[in-house]
């Protein structure tokens, strides 16, 4: 078993590179759909992560993704917001008996419908911040909102897919 800290760092690096080198190149429906799959790594951070650390991780991750697209500040702002609301979101969505120690916010530990709600809410918050900061105004409100909606769909779909790719079915039974 690899150290969870090390595993999370590797995962974050992998997803930043995936976003910067592959996903940003996708040109779906003339830029209408622009998934940000790297937030998968942020959402996978352990439940026990201190809030302060979470904020700084969000800041650094956002900054790294921005470096790929010359949009310094855009992803940074969205990620810091996500890191700020993520613990609150987890608290709202907590199961009645609370989280058990060592649980991950994943399909493996908390089930499909829980993960879908969590991922959809978190992604929607992140994407709204991202695209409205990108537009820097409410001028193209409808356009930006459609972009948020469809990109959220795409990101959540990819994240659920990623969950099943990371955890094989047998692994799910044993743990």
């Amino acid at each position, binding site marked *: 078993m690899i150290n969870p800290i090390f595993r999370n760092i590797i995962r974050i690096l992998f997803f930043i590179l995936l976003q910067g080198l592959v996903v940003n190149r996708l040109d779906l429906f003339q830029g209408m759909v622009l998934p940000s799959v790297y937030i998968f790594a942020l959402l996978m951070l352990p439940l026990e992560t201190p809030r302060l650390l979470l*904020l700084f991780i969000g800041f650094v991750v956002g900054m790294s993704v921005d470096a790929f697209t010359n949009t*310094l500040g855009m992803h940074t*702002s969205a990620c810091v917001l996500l890191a700020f609301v993520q613990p609150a979101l987890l608290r709202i969505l907590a199961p009645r008996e609370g989280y058990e120690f060592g649980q991950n916010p994943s399909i493996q530990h908390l089930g499909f419908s829980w993960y879908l709600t969590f991922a959809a809410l978190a992604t929607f918050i992140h994407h709204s911040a991202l695209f409205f900061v990108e537009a820097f105004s409410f001028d193209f409100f409808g356009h930006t909102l459609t972009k948020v909606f469809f990109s959220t769909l795409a990101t959540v779909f990819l994240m659920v897919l990623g969950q099943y790719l990371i955890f094989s079915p047998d692994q799910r039974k044993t743990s």
Partner: protein
Amino acid sequence: MRNIGRLIYRYHIFLVFLALQLIAFALLVKNNNYQESVFINTSNHLIGSLYEKRAAFSDYLKLSDFNDELSAENAQLKSKQLENFMDLENGTIVVNDTLFVQRYEYLPAKVINNSVNTRNNFITLNKGSVTGVKPEMGVVANGAMVGIIKDVSKHFSSVMPIINPNFTASIKLKKGNDFGMLAWKDKDPRYAQILEIPKHANVQIGDSVITTGFSSFFPEGLLVGTIAEIDAPEGENFYNIRLLLKTDFYKLSYVKVVSNLMKEEQLNLENVEQP
């Protein structure tokens, strides 16, 4: 005093959140400024070399397109060679004189990253200050305007293309010589807008639009695109023109950086204070 400390401690998460957001927005506003150079961007060495590796992969798939482009350009150049011209006046003596002085120099570069689908698009090239690229040089591809160099590192440079809302350039109609401004207000990377063409000008769909050569970035007469739509709003003096760009930003791969050898001279002259 202790109460203030306790208060800060109680809200420290929120305060850190606010501070980080402020930094993010400060960076955002600073980076949106046209000439402001930033330390973290795609001309950064690390990101640049990552992009270069990826470009090496994806270019392999586009080799046949590159070949077509090159052979077309070759054919064009071949047809301009001396042996293809007929000698009209036998016996004239050729004298090398100094009537011509080179004004523009071209430097080939490769596009290693290119965004078309964001609101602030950028292009990264694999040539930097080592090979003589400097900020504010023009970039052209296949005889058409692409953009202007924004940031330069040792081995890479980032380009602000026409399809960036901060880009402007002076242009003119090939027919009639009316001047206007080029700007990108659409979200469509195939089109741009022309502003400030007066209504008395004779404009037709399909007319060519070229550079003026007023600015020190581009030589005169470089093709920008052709007019696609003309709109004459009531009560205004100018047309709204939609321009179909000559450069296909989806397929951009090889470009040339224009270096104006007389830029200093021109700028010095223009900056002389009037007596």
